[in-house]
């Protein structure tokens, strides 16, 4: 089984979740209010009042074929809006 960690802007969270649903993800978990630094610069929570938002961390545990569908669904979003995704191995408890 695989574990996917996505870090994207909160502004795109709804789009990403919809893409996960369409790609057949069996479930996902979301942590908001994530700050950080990446190729696109530093993201803080200072602008939260403005609706600009910080990042969200999305975790998906799924099987390999689903992961491929997710990869295809997310690629355009990540390349348009920015954000990163990493995959590791995982087993159900």
């Amino acid at each position, binding site marked *: 089984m695989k574990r996917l960690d996505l870090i994207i*802007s909160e*502004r795109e969270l709804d*789009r990403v979740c919809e893409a996960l649903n369409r790609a057949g993800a069996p479930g996902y978990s979301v942590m908001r*209010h994530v700050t950080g630094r990446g190729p696109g*610069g530093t993201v*803080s*929570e*200072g*602008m*939260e*009042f*403005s*609706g*600009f*938002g*910080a990042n969200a961390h999305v975790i998906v545990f799924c099987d390999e074929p689903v992961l491929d569908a997710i990869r295809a669904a997310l*690629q*355009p*979003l990540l*390349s*348009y*809006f*920015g954000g990163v995704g990493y995959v590791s191995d995982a087993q159900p408890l």
Partner: protein
Amino acid sequence: MDSSLVLQNLLSPPVLFFGLGLIAVLVRSDLEIPAPLPKLFSLYLLLAIGFKGGLELQHSGLDRQVLLTMGAAVTMSLVVPISSFAVLRRRLDPFNAAAVAAAYGSISAVTFITAETFLVTMGVSFDGFMVAALALMESPAIIVGLLLVRFSTHRQGARQGLSEGGLGLGSVFHEAFLNSSVFLLVGSLVIGYLVAAYNPAGLTKMEPFTEQLFYGALSFFLLDMGIVAAQRLQDLRAAGGFLIGFAIGAPLVHALVGFAVALLLHLPQGDALLFMVLCASASYIAVPAAMRMTVPEANPSLYITSALGITFPFNIVVGIPLYMVLVQRWIPVT
């Protein structure tokens, strides 16, 4: 008298707390107003200003003067981004130029609110319908910004993969007119209007919340805005001299144009100041959020830093009293 105006503004609680926030960052204090507390204050201020504007609009009604002012407001929010774009294109690529231009075409509600409390302290009256002008000026620049990008680039590429994502004109209009700040402001304005018209008892009961608390809540929020603006100021080097110049020159020029329009429309002193402030201020709420979606090619630190890090403090600290000097010199007290 002129310098006393600046001083009186500088020594008002809202501006002093704003300064305290700036200083906190400069001396590296760990003072912070953790999220989502600033959001509480920003929602509160929008709700209160909308509600009060609505009830005053109900009292004053919609006459010719009101409609003319509204028309002028919308016109300014279309003209300013286009002219700004022309200036900004000298140094910035079309994406960044359009995003910055859109920010300056739109408005900053907090600057407007600070100008209102400034007028109240000065004892200068103003009309409630100016809040409607504020609401009307928030969105158009977002549309203009996107159109500027469309016409000046032949962007396709990454976009194509996103056809399902719904980034068409529809979702841009949606973002422009239904984003949370416009929605809450307009909604509260309508509610204020309805309550004033049909349920005046409700007004008195809202008053401690929307009126009495307002000044203190604004001061508290400006403490946070001072912190955030100062943090942005540290990105200044990224912005570069041209953008810094623009961020100070634009409010001055736009305030002057607004002043000319106010003279033409024979606006009274208070309304004239508010109109100038609307023209002079730049959006760091609705527009950046929309630009992130519609023009992701633009670099947020450019448009947020200039609007929030430079133009906002400039207007709060220096701009408002400066524009008032002009108003007092040329517009007679009514």
